[in-house]
């Protein structure tokens, strides 16, 4: 695809012309992230986070492949091999801290990327497929992160694996056999550790594949933009290179600044101290908590404390936790407003900033706290709001809201902002 005014790849170098005939890979790159991809001229810095997520994935792949050269996936020595990486391997501490904090950075940028999509209505037609593929990537990331967290075989690794595979045990009738099948035993042990290592190595490459599909699907309609108004003609766009390669460069520099601060000054800030205790199947840590990026979902899981009808509370919690992500797949049809951008939707914007935002922050806080009665009550209210926001509020707001007038074009919006008057067309 592209817009009719997209620049065509015309290599002047004879070798590149030869390449273009035999294997048009440079042409592919040129059209994807080069001057051949016209992008709306008004993208703000929130549009950096897709590229940043890609950068984070590359960091994880590089550090992860190296760590796998020193790690031993055997329950008797896994913990020691991680300590061996930390103490003996040259620069091993750096690689491991970069990998552990890199996972956090990956989730931070992906969460901002998702929130960008939610606020600017990027999930709406014609970009539903982009949104769906993004959610698939998110689910794969969660699975990968969970299995990676099990590998150091510390207390949180072990008990995290037990609790998460225990979620499948909540399924009626087939639950326990499925849990045993997933673990290859009756509790997490060598079999589980080995298969988690194998899959933890595989899934990032699956993610890479789905990212290719995600970008492919994106490039059919082209990127959205902060006004949510579609591109109308050439003056609405600029070539990706050099305009957005430069802008993304600024974002990448800022990303590495934050990453380096975390990595060198607070490498254990986001981790759990209990995971520096070797796994012990006979002693549960006082408070089993997942990594911070799972806290909102963990809070939803724990919010269900009473049986409803014939469904046990445990199963309800598991269903709600999975539903909280799966319902995002239906978002393109739950939000029926024709206006994409939250900037032009006064009511939607209020619910977004004062409803959904605090709701997820509260769920995150509750998921990381010890489950006292108060915490559970607050997470119940927040979980109820979360589902109400997407299933009731959003469809209603789409119907009753009067959106603000949209600019007739991206160019008009840009020029109005800078105070210049719109040039007469042609």
């Amino acid at each position, binding site marked *: 695809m592209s817009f009719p005014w997209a620049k065509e790849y015309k290599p002047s170098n004879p070798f590149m012309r030869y390449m273009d005939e035999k294997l048009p890979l440079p042409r592919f790159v040129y059209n994807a992230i080069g001057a051949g991809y016209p992008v709306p001229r008004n993208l703000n810095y929130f549009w950096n986070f897709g590229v940043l997520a890609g950068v984070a994935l590359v960091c994880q792949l590089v550090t992860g492949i190296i760590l796998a050269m020193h790690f031993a996936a055997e329950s008797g020595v896994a913990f020691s091999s991680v300590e061996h990486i930390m103490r003996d391997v040259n620069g091993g501490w750096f690689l491991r801290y970069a990998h552990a904090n890199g996972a956090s950075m990956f989730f931070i940028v992906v969460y901002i990327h998702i929130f960008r999509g939610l606020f600017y209505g990027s999930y709406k037609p014609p970009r539903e497929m982009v949104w769906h593929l993004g959610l698939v990537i998110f689910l794969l990331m969660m699975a990968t992160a969970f299995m990676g967290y099990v590998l150091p075989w510390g207390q949180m690794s072990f*008990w995290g694996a*037990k*609790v998460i595979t*225990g979620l499948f*045990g909540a399924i009626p009738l087939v639950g326990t056999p499925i849990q*045993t*099948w*997933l673990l*290859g*035993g*009756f*509790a997490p*042990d060598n*079999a589980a550790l080995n*298969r988690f290592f194998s899959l933890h190595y595989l899934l990032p490459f699956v993610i890479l594949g789905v990212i290719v599909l995600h970008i492919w699907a994106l490039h059919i309609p082209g990127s959205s933009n902060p006004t949510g108004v579609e591109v109308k003609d050439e003056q609405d766009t600029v070539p990706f290179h050099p305009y957005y390669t430069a802008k993304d460069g600024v974002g990448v520099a800022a990303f590495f600044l934050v990453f380096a601060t975390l990595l060198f000054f607070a490498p254990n800030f986001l981790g759990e101290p209990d995971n520096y205790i070797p796994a012990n*199947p*006979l*002693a*549960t840590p*006082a*408070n*089993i908590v997942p990594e911070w990026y799972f806290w909102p979902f963990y809070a939803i899981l*724990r919010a269900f*404390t009473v*049986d409803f009808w014939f469904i*046990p*509370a*445990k199963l309800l919690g598991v269903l709600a936790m999975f539903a909280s992500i799966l319902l995002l797949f239906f978002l393109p049809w739950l939000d029926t407003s024709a206006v994409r951008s939250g900037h032009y939707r006064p009511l939607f914007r209020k619910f977004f900033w004062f409803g959904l935002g605090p709701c997820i922050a509260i769920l995150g806080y509750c998921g990381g706290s010890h*489950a006292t009665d108060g915490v559970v009550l607050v997470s119940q209210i927040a979980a109820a709001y979360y589902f109400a926001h997407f299933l009731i509020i959003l469809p209603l707001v789409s119907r009753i809201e009067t959106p603000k007038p949209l600019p007739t074009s991206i160019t008009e919006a840009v020029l109005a902002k800078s105070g210049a008057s719109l040039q007469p067309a042609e």
Partner: protein
Amino acid sequence: MASLTEDSATADVDQGGVRRRDFINVAAASFAGVGAVSVALPLINQMNPSADVLAEASTEVDVSAIQPGQSIKTMFRKQPLFVRHLTPAEIASAEAVSLSDLRDPQSLEERTKPGKSQWLVTMGVCTHLGCVPLGASSGEVKGEFGGYFCPCHGSSYDTAARIRKGPAPKNLEVPPYEFTSDTVIKVG
């Protein structure tokens, strides 16, 4: 163009719109499908517990040293196992509870062996999310029903290890076991 040639080539074998080639296509796809499934089975089944894991699936425990009121924590299938010698008072308190008050109604008799109701053998795995409840080692809190207490989400079990309060849905699981002598039990 291609379909036209094909149609004319096979027109003489048409029977109600079904061509002989359709049979070959269906047969070939079915054959490949059955083959794929039969190859997939071992690929799926390798995930199940291996022979060495299953070989550890039974454990013998000598209970002769456990005094009334005491309990021990051991391992069965790589999971904690609680063996508890109940005092007469604990037996009485477990038997005093009406079954209709229980979330997972089971009497102490159903959860112990005949004539050995002082021996309570259960898994040390909370039925909520799989934590190890407290109460088996000396000095640990036993919860408000005097049995076990799970520190993760506050499930309380009574002296028959039945769920009484908190989020856990079931009683602590009683594994299959038998007394091989008066003082030795074989679990699994």
